[in-house]
């Protein structure tokens, strides 16, 4: 399973990790995951998203509600949110 990250992380790293994860959830996808596409369009909808949120939790070591994905439905938006969240939860 995912090893938790410790120490600082950049927005870029966060974003590419998310892109990679989404790719794993959609093994049949031919093209690259578009960070500006809504995750729901990859089948990561309201229910399927809980496991995804848990993955993010494990990796970043912070609490992430599935509703965070509802509120920030693209990789780009989610990455920004998670970065701030991580700083705040670490503080």
């Amino acid at each position: 399973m995912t090893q938790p990250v410790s120490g600082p992380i950049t927005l870029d790293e966060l974003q590419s990790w998310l892109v990679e994860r989404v790719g794993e959830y959609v093994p049949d996808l031919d093209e690259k995951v578009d960070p500006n596409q809504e995750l729901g369009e990859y089948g990561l909808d309201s229910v399927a998203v809980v496991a995804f949120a848990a993955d993010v939790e494990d990796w970043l070591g912070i609490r992430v509600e599935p509703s965070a994905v509802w509120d920030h439905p693209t990789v780009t938006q989610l990455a920004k949110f998670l970065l701030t969240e991580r700083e705040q939860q670490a503080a």
Partner: protein
Amino acid sequence: MRRAEFVREVDRWSKPDGPFDAALLTAYDDAESFPGAACAVLDRWGLPAYYVPAQYGGRLARFDEMHALLRKVASEDVTVAVAHGKTFLGAASVWVSGDDGAAAQLARHVMAGEAVAWGLTEPDRGSDLLAGELTATRDASGWCLSGRKWPVNNATRGRFVCVLARTDPGGGARGFSVFLVDKQAASSGSVRHLPKMPTHGIRGADISGVEFRDTHVPADALIGTVGGGLELVLKALQLTRMACAALSLGAGDHALRLARRFLSERRLHGRPFSDLPHARGVAGRAVARLLLAEAVSYAAARAAHEVPEELSVVSAITKALVPTLIQGQLRLVGELLGARGFLTGVEGYGGFAKIERDHQVVSIFDGSTWVNRSALASSLPILRPGRRPATAAGRPVHEWLRQDADLTPVDPLRLGVMARGNTVLNSLDDSVARLAADPRGGADHLATRLLDAFGEVGGDIARLRPVAGPVPTATMRLAERYEWCFAGAAALALWGANPKHHDRHVWREALWLRGCLALVLEGLGAPAPEATGVFDELGRLLLSDEGTHVSLFGTSSEVSA
């Protein structure tokens, strides 16, 4: 106290010419008319107050108590329980929203006997909550609703209907909101009722629909936040799905009464029918199914108080498993009754076919068995053994499952849409160890088998690769195995938590526990050869004096709540 009194009252109402007289309720069923007199006595007794949380002036302080009352009603008539209990389902979103103003206002109406319907489903949209097309748009002083909800229980009779409406034309997880509509306050002609549907079971219930035609509702009809509807509904469903289990338990109680009577009075080839080992075995299985369903429901009702963060998973398990257990129990009783289960005019037994018909709806509405199982399946990766400990450790399970335990008041704000742990299931190791220290009747061997089986389930979960989109069949089966493990863990935890009961009838020699564990192991595909005799023992129990009220904690009237 009130609970014992309620049981006596319902028994009294069930006498000939009372509002719960079986002949009368059958006549209503035949005529497809609403059992109004039965609902009216429940109102007069004050049952609606148990649908209202104590903090808003009601009597709902403990879910196990509310469920026991609903179970009692269902044990006489499932249709009445569905028709009356529906108000709790309709109101649940309001209680969960934490909107004190709206809740206080609705509380007064519910306690005055007003029915509240819950409109989630729309024509041709099925179980998909995000497919709804009923829209709410802002107008000058509130909102304007248009669209239909159907089929909805009490849609016509209920003064209030709580609806999930699309507030963002694009939809999505943040595109829906909940509204509580007072139909009486709507301008005339803007709310139309869709006619009652003929149904296979619960024929007297008001299964109809409602159509809003640019219906204006005030701003305070919005419950929770704009866009918060899905989250709110997912949380409310956690409470209502557990209440549905009470309907199943009541149906199971009723069926066992008929089975007991039949076994005791039927003679075959000059001997009592109950001399047939097979008949006793089937009856014993029916008993075990009811007791396992009770153990799951009991643990779930208390989990709502103690580990509400985990309720998304606990309620999905309960709603998937309990109605299924009882459906299987009814099938067994039906086989036992033979022709009497099929003929509807036979004195004393004519009601069986109605129980079976009525109960079928429980595994369909409020999220079908599959809908709940697939929700559980989506959560399995989070529940894999060894994932970092979820929540801070609270009270130990063996404390809050003790029959006379005080429960932590319910806090809806602790509900969530993603359970990070499963306290009941995680107590399995501990429960098995307790049993090993004081083994009874060989139950400890069965418990060890369960522990092994759970180890395998855990291994399969750890290997699970979550994928987006529909849940694969293999994962659905894994979820089902997980449900069985949960049921076994709940039974073992109840055993460990209640040593005071260990010498009371159905607890003696761990009889009920062995029956439950035997069923669980069968469900897991690992039947225990040493357990074959337990169903015969349970069948004998049903025939004994103790068989009048088969339940883990004695007859409800013995309980001094």
